[in-house]
Protein backbone atom coordinates (compact mmCIF):
# COMPACT_ATOMS: atom_id res chain seq x y z
CA UNK A 1 0.00 0.00 0.00
CA UNK A 2 1.43 3.37 -1.04
CA UNK A 3 1.96 6.00 1.73
CA UNK A 4 0.17 8.52 -0.52
CA UNK A 5 -3.10 6.65 -0.25
CA UNK A 6 -5.08 7.38 2.88
CA UNK A 7 -5.98 4.51 5.15
CA UNK A 8 -9.59 3.67 5.98
CA UNK A 9 -9.28 5.58 9.28
CA UNK A 10 -7.85 8.62 7.44
CA UNK A 11 -10.66 8.49 4.86
CA UNK A 12 -13.16 8.57 7.68
CA UNK A 13 -11.33 11.56 9.18
CA UNK A 14 -11.30 13.31 5.81
CA UNK A 15 -15.04 12.86 5.63
CA UNK A 16 -15.37 14.41 9.07
CA UNK A 17 -13.29 17.38 7.96
CA UNK A 18 -15.48 17.88 4.90
CA UNK A 19 -18.56 17.78 7.12
CA UNK A 20 -16.94 20.25 9.54
CA UNK A 21 -16.05 22.65 6.72
CA UNK A 22 -19.55 22.51 5.33
CA UNK A 23 -21.08 23.02 8.77
CA UNK A 24 -18.87 26.06 9.49
CA UNK A 25 -19.67 27.56 6.11
CA UNK A 26 -23.42 27.01 6.40
CA UNK A 27 -23.64 28.27 9.97
CA UNK A 28 -21.65 31.43 9.34
CA UNK A 29 -23.47 32.15 6.10
CA UNK A 30 -26.79 31.83 7.93
CA UNK A 31 -25.53 34.09 10.74
CA UNK A 32 -24.22 36.65 8.26
CA UNK A 33 -27.58 36.75 6.48
CA UNK A 34 -29.36 37.03 9.82
CA UNK A 35 -27.20 39.89 11.09
CA UNK A 36 -26.74 41.74 7.83
CA UNK A 37 -28.76 44.89 7.21
CA UNK A 38 -32.12 43.85 5.91
CA UNK A 39 -32.64 44.58 2.23
CA UNK A 40 -34.33 47.79 1.14
CA UNK A 41 -38.01 47.96 1.95
CA UNK A 42 -40.59 50.30 0.49
CA UNK A 43 -39.56 53.92 0.06
CA UNK A 44 -41.01 56.21 2.73
CA UNK A 45 -40.77 59.84 3.73
CA UNK A 46 -40.85 60.69 7.43
CA UNK A 47 -41.91 64.07 8.76
CA UNK A 48 -40.51 65.27 12.09
CA UNK A 49 -41.07 68.38 14.18
CA UNK A 50 -38.31 69.04 16.69
CA UNK A 51 -37.30 65.38 16.46
CA UNK A 52 -40.82 64.05 17.06
CA UNK A 53 -42.19 61.85 14.28
CA UNK A 54 -45.40 63.39 12.91
CA UNK A 55 -46.14 61.20 9.90
CA UNK A 56 -44.79 58.39 7.75
CA UNK A 57 -45.66 58.76 4.06
CA UNK A 58 -45.25 55.61 1.91
CA UNK A 59 -44.10 56.51 -1.61
CA UNK A 60 -44.76 54.47 -4.73
CA UNK A 61 -45.00 55.11 -8.46
CA UNK A 62 -48.76 54.59 -8.77
CA UNK A 63 -49.77 56.67 -5.76
CA UNK A 64 -52.38 59.41 -5.94
CA UNK A 65 -50.96 62.87 -5.20
CA UNK A 66 -51.69 63.94 -1.66
CA UNK A 67 -50.97 66.98 0.51
CA UNK A 68 -50.39 67.14 4.24
CA UNK A 69 -50.65 70.31 6.24
CA UNK A 70 -48.73 70.64 9.48
CA UNK A 71 -49.69 73.58 11.64
CA UNK A 72 -48.30 74.62 14.99
CA UNK A 73 -49.13 77.96 16.60
CA UNK A 74 -48.86 80.39 13.66
CA UNK A 75 -46.51 78.18 11.66
CA UNK A 76 -47.71 76.19 8.68
CA UNK A 77 -45.98 73.77 6.31
CA UNK A 78 -47.70 71.98 3.43
CA UNK A 79 -46.01 68.86 2.10
CA UNK A 80 -46.81 67.37 -1.30
CA UNK A 81 -46.31 63.65 -1.94
CA UNK A 82 -46.99 62.01 -5.28
CA UNK A 83 -45.53 59.72 -7.93
CA UNK A 84 -42.84 62.35 -8.64
CA UNK A 85 -41.69 62.35 -5.02
CA UNK A 86 -41.96 64.60 -1.99
CA UNK A 87 -41.41 68.32 -1.60
CA UNK A 88 -42.34 71.20 0.67
CA UNK A 89 -45.13 72.80 -1.34
CA UNK A 90 -45.47 75.87 0.84
CA UNK A 91 -44.48 77.25 4.21
CA UNK A 92 -45.04 80.55 5.93
CA UNK A 93 -41.47 80.61 7.22
CA UNK A 94 -39.45 83.77 6.53
CA UNK A 95 -36.57 82.29 4.51
CA UNK A 96 -38.43 79.79 2.25
CA UNK A 97 -35.29 77.64 2.05
CA UNK A 98 -37.34 74.46 2.51
CA UNK A 99 -39.65 75.35 -0.41
CA UNK A 100 -36.75 76.29 -2.68
CA UNK A 101 -35.03 72.95 -2.03
CA UNK A 102 -37.60 71.28 -4.30
CA UNK A 103 -37.91 67.51 -4.51
CA UNK A 104 -36.44 65.35 -1.79
CA UNK A 105 -33.93 63.29 -3.74
CA UNK A 106 -31.30 62.00 -1.36
CA UNK A 107 -31.54 60.22 1.95
CA UNK A 108 -28.56 62.23 3.15
CA UNK A 109 -30.03 65.61 2.20
CA UNK A 110 -33.30 65.98 4.13
CA UNK A 111 -35.61 68.92 3.55
CA UNK A 112 -35.28 71.16 6.58
CA UNK A 113 -37.50 74.07 7.59
CA UNK A 114 -35.30 75.53 10.29
CA UNK A 115 -37.61 78.32 11.45
CA UNK A 116 -40.42 75.78 12.02
CA UNK A 117 -38.06 72.93 12.99
CA UNK A 118 -39.68 70.59 10.47
CA UNK A 119 -37.54 67.88 8.84
CA UNK A 120 -38.54 65.51 6.02
CA UNK A 121 -36.33 62.48 5.53
CA UNK A 122 -36.30 59.84 2.81
CA UNK A 123 -35.75 56.17 3.52
CA UNK A 124 -35.06 53.24 1.23
CA UNK A 125 -34.54 55.43 -1.81
CA UNK A 126 -33.00 53.56 -4.76
CA UNK A 127 -29.84 55.69 -4.47
CA UNK A 128 -29.70 55.65 -0.67
CA UNK A 129 -26.27 54.06 -0.66
CA UNK A 130 -24.88 56.39 -3.34
CA UNK A 131 -23.63 59.06 -0.94
CA UNK A 132 -22.57 58.85 2.67
CA UNK A 133 -23.24 62.55 3.18
CA UNK A 134 -24.07 65.68 1.20
CA UNK A 135 -21.99 68.80 1.82
CA UNK A 136 -24.06 71.96 1.52
Amino acid at each position, binding site marked *: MSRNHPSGRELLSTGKWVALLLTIFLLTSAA*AILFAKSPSQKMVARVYRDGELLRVIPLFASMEPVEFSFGFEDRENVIYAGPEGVRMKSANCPDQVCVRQGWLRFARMPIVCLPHRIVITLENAPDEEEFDAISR
Partner: protein
Amino acid sequence: MVMMRMRRAAWLVLALALTLLGTATVQAEERTFFAMDTVMSVRADGADAALLAKCEERIAQLEGLLSVTKEDSEIARLNRDGRAELSLDTQAILSFALEMGEQTQGALDVTLYPIVRAWGFTTGDYRVPSDDELAGLLSHVDYRSVTLENREARLPEGFMVDLGSVVKGYASDQLGSLLRENQVCSGIIDLGGNVYCLGRKSDGSPWRVGIQDPSGEGIIGSIAVEDRAVVTSGNYERCFAGEDGTVYGHIFDPATGRPAESGLTSVTVIGPSGAECDALSTALFVMGVERAAEYLKNQDHVEAIMLDEDGMLWVTEGIAEDFIPSEAFRAQRTIQ
Protein backbone atom coordinates in the same frame (compact mmCIF):
# COMPACT_ATOMS: atom_id res chain seq x y z
CA MET B 1 -0.85 14.92 3.75
CA VAL B 2 -4.54 15.05 2.91
CA MET B 3 -5.32 15.62 6.58
CA MET B 4 -2.92 18.57 6.76
CA ARG B 5 -4.44 20.13 3.68
CA MET B 6 -7.91 19.67 5.08
CA ARG B 7 -6.90 21.24 8.41
CA ARG B 8 -5.37 24.23 6.61
CA ALA B 9 -8.48 24.58 4.49
CA ALA B 10 -10.62 24.41 7.62
CA TRP B 11 -8.68 27.24 9.26
CA LEU B 12 -8.95 29.30 6.08
CA VAL B 13 -12.69 28.75 5.85
CA LEU B 14 -13.06 29.57 9.54
CA ALA B 15 -11.08 32.82 9.15
CA LEU B 16 -13.08 33.75 6.06
CA ALA B 17 -16.33 32.97 7.78
CA LEU B 18 -15.44 35.00 10.86
CA THR B 19 -14.43 37.94 8.66
CA LEU B 20 -17.73 37.66 6.80
CA LEU B 21 -19.62 37.47 10.05
CA GLY B 22 -17.67 40.40 11.49
CA THR B 23 -18.36 42.58 8.46
CA ALA B 24 -22.02 41.70 8.48
CA THR B 25 -22.46 42.51 12.16
CA VAL B 26 -20.74 45.96 12.23
CA GLN B 27 -23.69 48.26 12.72
CA ALA B 28 -23.49 52.03 12.62
CA GLU B 29 -25.13 53.86 15.52
CA GLU B 30 -26.71 57.15 14.46
CA ARG B 31 -28.10 60.15 16.33
CA THR B 32 -29.90 63.12 14.77
CA PHE B 33 -30.68 66.35 16.62
CA PHE B 34 -31.32 70.11 16.24
CA ALA B 35 -28.54 72.43 17.36
CA MET B 36 -26.83 75.63 16.23
CA ASP B 37 -29.89 76.45 14.10
CA THR B 38 -29.56 73.36 11.95
CA VAL B 39 -30.08 69.61 11.87
CA MET B 40 -27.08 67.53 12.84
CA SER B 41 -26.33 63.84 12.72
CA VAL B 42 -23.48 61.69 13.96
CA ARG B 43 -23.09 58.17 12.59
CA ALA B 44 -20.28 56.00 13.86
CA ASP B 45 -19.38 52.34 13.52
CA GLY B 46 -18.87 50.66 16.85
CA ALA B 47 -20.13 53.61 18.92
CA ASP B 48 -22.89 53.11 21.46
CA ALA B 49 -25.87 55.37 22.13
CA ALA B 50 -24.19 56.84 25.22
CA LEU B 51 -21.18 58.04 23.22
CA LEU B 52 -23.38 59.70 20.60
CA ALA B 53 -25.36 61.35 23.42
CA LYS B 54 -22.01 62.75 24.62
CA CYS B 55 -21.45 64.15 21.12
CA GLU B 56 -24.78 65.97 21.31
CA GLU B 57 -23.92 67.27 24.79
CA ARG B 58 -20.59 68.58 23.49
CA ILE B 59 -22.38 70.45 20.70
CA ALA B 60 -24.82 71.93 23.22
CA GLN B 61 -21.88 73.00 25.39
CA LEU B 62 -20.17 74.74 22.45
CA GLU B 63 -23.40 76.40 21.40
CA GLY B 64 -23.87 77.67 24.95
CA LEU B 65 -20.42 79.28 24.84
CA LEU B 66 -20.26 80.53 21.27
CA SER B 67 -23.78 81.42 20.14
CA VAL B 68 -24.14 85.07 19.24
CA THR B 69 -27.88 85.05 19.97
CA LYS B 70 -27.93 83.26 23.35
CA GLU B 71 -27.81 86.08 25.89
CA ASP B 72 -25.66 84.24 28.42
CA SER B 73 -23.02 82.95 25.97
CA GLU B 74 -19.45 84.18 26.26
CA ILE B 75 -19.65 85.76 22.81
CA ALA B 76 -22.91 87.57 23.67
CA ARG B 77 -21.26 88.87 26.87
CA LEU B 78 -18.22 90.02 24.90
CA ASN B 79 -20.48 91.86 22.43
CA ARG B 80 -22.55 93.42 25.20
CA ASP B 81 -19.79 94.44 27.63
CA GLY B 82 -16.87 94.93 25.24
CA ARG B 83 -14.78 92.54 27.31
CA ALA B 84 -15.10 88.98 28.61
CA GLU B 85 -13.13 86.23 30.29
CA LEU B 86 -13.14 83.31 27.87
CA SER B 87 -13.20 79.55 28.35
CA LEU B 88 -10.50 77.53 26.62
CA ASP B 89 -12.90 76.62 23.80
CA THR B 90 -13.91 80.21 23.08
CA GLN B 91 -10.33 81.40 23.40
CA ALA B 92 -9.12 78.71 20.97
CA ILE B 93 -11.75 79.36 18.33
CA LEU B 94 -11.56 83.17 18.54
CA SER B 95 -7.79 83.04 18.31
CA PHE B 96 -8.04 80.70 15.30
CA ALA B 97 -10.63 82.91 13.58
CA LEU B 98 -8.46 86.02 14.02
CA GLU B 99 -5.48 84.13 12.62
CA MET B 100 -7.56 83.09 9.58
CA GLY B 101 -8.52 86.75 9.15
CA GLU B 102 -4.82 87.56 8.93
CA GLN B 103 -4.07 84.65 6.58
CA THR B 104 -6.89 85.54 4.21
CA GLN B 105 -6.11 89.27 4.37
CA GLY B 106 -9.50 90.05 5.83
CA ALA B 107 -11.64 87.94 3.48
CA LEU B 108 -12.78 86.23 6.68
CA ASP B 109 -13.71 88.80 9.30
CA VAL B 110 -15.49 87.74 12.49
CA THR B 111 -16.39 91.34 13.32
CA LEU B 112 -18.93 91.54 10.47
CA TYR B 113 -21.81 90.97 12.88
CA PRO B 114 -23.13 94.59 12.91
CA ILE B 115 -23.47 94.33 9.11
CA VAL B 116 -25.14 90.89 9.19
CA ARG B 117 -27.59 92.20 11.78
CA ALA B 118 -28.42 95.30 9.75
CA TRP B 119 -29.39 93.13 6.78
CA GLY B 120 -31.74 91.14 9.04
CA PHE B 121 -30.03 87.76 8.77
CA THR B 122 -30.14 87.17 12.51
CA THR B 123 -33.77 88.12 13.03
CA GLY B 124 -35.51 87.25 9.75
CA ASP B 125 -36.53 90.92 9.30
CA TYR B 126 -34.66 91.23 6.02
CA ARG B 127 -33.96 94.66 4.53
CA VAL B 128 -31.39 96.44 2.38
CA PRO B 129 -29.49 99.04 4.46
CA SER B 130 -28.66 102.38 2.86
CA ASP B 131 -25.13 103.15 1.68
CA ASP B 132 -24.73 105.68 4.51
CA GLU B 133 -25.81 103.16 7.10
CA LEU B 134 -23.38 100.57 5.70
CA ALA B 135 -20.53 103.09 5.65
CA GLY B 136 -21.20 103.88 9.32
CA LEU B 137 -21.32 100.22 10.28
CA LEU B 138 -18.17 99.37 8.32
CA SER B 139 -16.19 101.68 10.60
CA HIS B 140 -16.92 99.07 13.28
CA VAL B 141 -15.69 96.13 11.22
CA ASP B 142 -12.04 95.09 11.48
CA TYR B 143 -10.82 91.81 12.97
CA ARG B 144 -7.50 93.49 13.86
CA SER B 145 -9.31 95.58 16.46
CA VAL B 146 -10.08 92.54 18.62
CA THR B 147 -7.55 92.02 21.38
CA LEU B 148 -7.07 88.64 22.99
CA GLU B 149 -4.62 88.50 25.85
CA ASN B 150 -4.35 85.42 28.00
CA ARG B 151 -8.01 84.57 28.45
CA GLU B 152 -9.49 88.01 28.17
CA ALA B 153 -10.96 89.40 24.95
CA ARG B 154 -11.71 93.08 24.38
CA LEU B 155 -13.64 94.91 21.67
CA PRO B 156 -13.67 98.64 20.84
CA GLU B 157 -16.97 100.50 21.24
CA GLY B 158 -19.55 99.45 18.65
CA PHE B 159 -17.70 96.31 17.56
CA MET B 160 -19.28 92.85 17.74
CA VAL B 161 -18.01 89.33 17.04
CA ASP B 162 -19.82 86.41 15.44
CA LEU B 163 -17.99 83.08 15.12
CA GLY B 164 -20.69 81.51 12.93
CA SER B 165 -18.25 81.09 10.04
CA VAL B 166 -16.03 78.70 12.01
CA VAL B 167 -18.16 77.24 14.80
CA LYS B 168 -19.52 74.17 13.01
CA GLY B 169 -16.13 73.27 11.61
CA TYR B 170 -14.56 73.59 15.05
CA ALA B 171 -17.40 71.51 16.51
CA SER B 172 -16.87 68.76 13.93
CA ASP B 173 -13.17 68.62 14.86
CA GLN B 174 -14.14 68.32 18.52
CA LEU B 175 -16.57 65.47 17.82
CA GLY B 176 -13.96 63.71 15.68
CA SER B 177 -11.53 63.84 18.62
CA LEU B 178 -14.19 62.63 21.05
CA LEU B 179 -15.00 59.63 18.86
CA ARG B 180 -11.31 58.77 18.37
CA GLU B 181 -10.65 58.99 22.11
CA ASN B 182 -13.36 56.35 22.48
CA GLN B 183 -11.73 54.02 19.95
CA VAL B 184 -14.18 54.83 17.16
CA CYS B 185 -12.31 55.12 13.89
CA SER B 186 -15.09 55.11 11.29
CA GLY B 187 -17.98 57.54 11.11
CA ILE B 188 -19.62 60.58 9.56
CA ILE B 189 -20.30 63.82 11.41
CA ASP B 190 -22.82 65.94 9.51
CA LEU B 191 -23.46 69.30 11.15
CA GLY B 192 -26.08 70.77 8.85
CA GLY B 193 -24.16 69.82 5.72
CA ASN B 194 -20.81 70.67 7.27
CA VAL B 195 -19.32 67.18 6.92
CA TYR B 196 -16.42 65.47 8.68
CA CYS B 197 -15.45 61.94 7.58
CA LEU B 198 -13.72 59.92 10.26
CA GLY B 199 -11.39 57.25 8.86
CA ARG B 200 -12.81 55.02 6.17
CA LYS B 201 -16.05 53.09 5.90
CA SER B 202 -16.22 49.80 7.79
CA ASP B 203 -15.72 47.90 4.53
CA GLY B 204 -12.41 49.72 4.01
CA SER B 205 -13.55 51.95 1.15
CA PRO B 206 -13.39 55.77 1.33
CA TRP B 207 -16.47 57.84 2.15
CA ARG B 208 -18.32 59.36 -0.79
CA VAL B 209 -19.61 62.86 -0.19
CA GLY B 210 -21.93 64.64 -2.62
CA ILE B 211 -21.80 68.42 -3.06
CA GLN B 212 -25.13 70.20 -3.37
CA ASP B 213 -25.91 72.03 -6.59
CA PRO B 214 -26.47 75.63 -5.48
CA SER B 215 -29.10 76.24 -8.15
CA GLY B 216 -31.16 73.06 -7.96
CA GLU B 217 -32.09 69.88 -6.16
CA GLY B 218 -29.21 67.70 -7.27
CA ILE B 219 -25.48 67.67 -6.76
CA ILE B 220 -22.58 69.12 -8.73
CA GLY B 221 -20.52 65.99 -8.10
CA SER B 222 -19.04 63.84 -5.39
CA ILE B 223 -15.64 63.17 -3.86
CA ALA B 224 -14.06 60.16 -2.22
CA VAL B 225 -12.34 61.07 1.07
CA GLU B 226 -11.01 59.63 4.31
CA ASP B 227 -10.21 61.52 7.51
CA ARG B 228 -11.22 64.79 5.91
CA ALA B 229 -13.68 67.58 6.48
CA VAL B 230 -15.80 68.64 3.50
CA VAL B 231 -17.36 72.07 3.95
CA THR B 232 -19.40 74.01 1.39
CA SER B 233 -20.47 77.66 1.37
CA GLY B 234 -22.94 79.21 -1.01
CA ASN B 235 -25.41 82.04 -0.97
CA TYR B 236 -28.30 79.71 -1.82
CA GLU B 237 -29.02 78.43 1.69
CA ARG B 238 -29.79 81.70 3.39
CA CYS B 239 -30.91 84.54 1.19
CA PHE B 240 -33.83 86.85 0.58
CA ALA B 241 -35.31 88.77 -2.33
CA GLY B 242 -35.36 92.56 -2.01
CA GLU B 243 -38.22 94.78 -3.18
CA ASP B 244 -36.48 95.18 -6.54
CA GLY B 245 -36.32 91.38 -6.97
CA THR B 246 -32.57 91.18 -6.33
CA VAL B 247 -31.60 88.10 -4.31
CA TYR B 248 -29.24 88.90 -1.44
CA GLY B 249 -27.12 86.12 0.08
CA HIS B 250 -25.79 85.74 3.59
CA ILE B 251 -22.05 85.68 2.78
CA PHE B 252 -20.77 89.23 3.15
CA ASP B 253 -17.76 90.95 1.70
CA PRO B 254 -16.04 92.72 4.62
CA ALA B 255 -14.73 95.35 2.21
CA THR B 256 -18.20 96.53 1.11
CA GLY B 257 -20.61 95.35 3.80
CA ARG B 258 -22.76 93.89 1.02
CA PRO B 259 -23.38 90.25 0.00
CA ALA B 260 -20.24 88.99 -1.76
CA GLU B 261 -20.40 89.30 -5.55
CA SER B 262 -17.25 87.41 -6.46
CA GLY B 263 -18.66 85.45 -9.40
CA LEU B 264 -18.76 82.23 -7.38
CA THR B 265 -21.95 80.40 -6.46
CA SER B 266 -20.47 77.62 -4.34
CA VAL B 267 -17.14 76.84 -2.70
CA THR B 268 -16.24 73.47 -1.15
CA VAL B 269 -13.06 73.05 0.85
CA ILE B 270 -11.59 69.65 1.75
CA GLY B 271 -8.93 69.26 4.41
CA PRO B 272 -7.93 67.67 7.71
CA SER B 273 -9.31 70.48 9.90
CA GLY B 274 -13.05 71.19 9.91
CA ALA B 275 -12.48 74.64 11.40
CA GLU B 276 -10.04 75.62 8.66
CA CYS B 277 -12.30 74.24 5.90
CA ASP B 278 -15.23 76.15 7.37
CA ALA B 279 -13.26 79.40 7.53
CA LEU B 280 -11.83 78.98 4.04
CA SER B 281 -15.11 78.05 2.35
CA THR B 282 -16.38 81.51 3.34
CA ALA B 283 -13.12 83.36 2.68
CA LEU B 284 -12.55 81.81 -0.78
CA PHE B 285 -16.15 82.60 -1.70
CA VAL B 286 -15.49 86.25 -0.88
CA MET B 287 -12.14 86.24 -2.74
CA GLY B 288 -13.42 84.90 -6.08
CA VAL B 289 -11.64 82.45 -8.36
CA GLU B 290 -8.43 84.35 -9.07
CA ARG B 291 -7.58 85.35 -5.51
CA ALA B 292 -8.70 81.96 -4.22
CA ALA B 293 -6.47 80.12 -6.71
CA GLU B 294 -3.54 82.29 -5.68
CA TYR B 295 -4.22 81.61 -2.00
CA LEU B 296 -4.55 77.85 -2.56
CA LYS B 297 -1.15 77.65 -4.28
CA ASN B 298 0.49 77.97 -0.87
CA GLN B 299 -1.88 75.60 0.97
CA ASP B 300 -0.91 72.03 0.10
CA HIS B 301 -3.00 70.52 2.88
CA VAL B 302 -6.36 71.82 1.63
CA GLU B 303 -8.20 71.25 -1.64
CA ALA B 304 -11.13 73.12 -3.13
CA ILE B 305 -13.95 72.73 -5.63
CA MET B 306 -15.47 76.03 -6.76
CA LEU B 307 -18.42 76.67 -9.06
CA ASP B 308 -18.70 80.00 -10.84
CA GLU B 309 -21.76 81.79 -12.21
CA ASP B 310 -21.06 80.45 -15.72
CA GLY B 311 -21.27 76.85 -14.54
CA MET B 312 -17.51 76.28 -14.69
CA LEU B 313 -16.03 74.06 -12.01
CA TRP B 314 -12.60 74.98 -10.64
CA VAL B 315 -10.94 71.99 -8.97
CA THR B 316 -7.53 71.90 -7.28
CA GLU B 317 -5.10 69.38 -8.69
CA GLY B 318 -4.82 67.34 -5.49
CA ILE B 319 -8.50 66.34 -5.43
CA ALA B 320 -9.19 66.21 -9.18
CA GLU B 321 -8.79 62.41 -9.40
CA ASP B 322 -11.14 61.80 -6.46
CA PHE B 323 -13.85 64.11 -7.77
CA ILE B 324 -16.61 62.83 -10.03
CA PRO B 325 -18.68 65.68 -11.53
CA SER B 326 -22.36 65.21 -12.32
CA GLU B 327 -23.54 65.14 -15.94
CA ALA B 328 -24.48 68.82 -15.97
CA PHE B 329 -21.10 69.94 -14.63
CA ARG B 330 -18.57 68.57 -17.07
CA ALA B 331 -16.97 71.96 -17.76
CA GLN B 332 -14.00 71.86 -15.46
CA ARG B 333 -10.66 73.60 -15.00
CA THR B 334 -7.87 72.41 -12.78
CA ILE B 335 -6.13 74.77 -10.39
CA GLN B 336 -2.44 73.85 -10.40
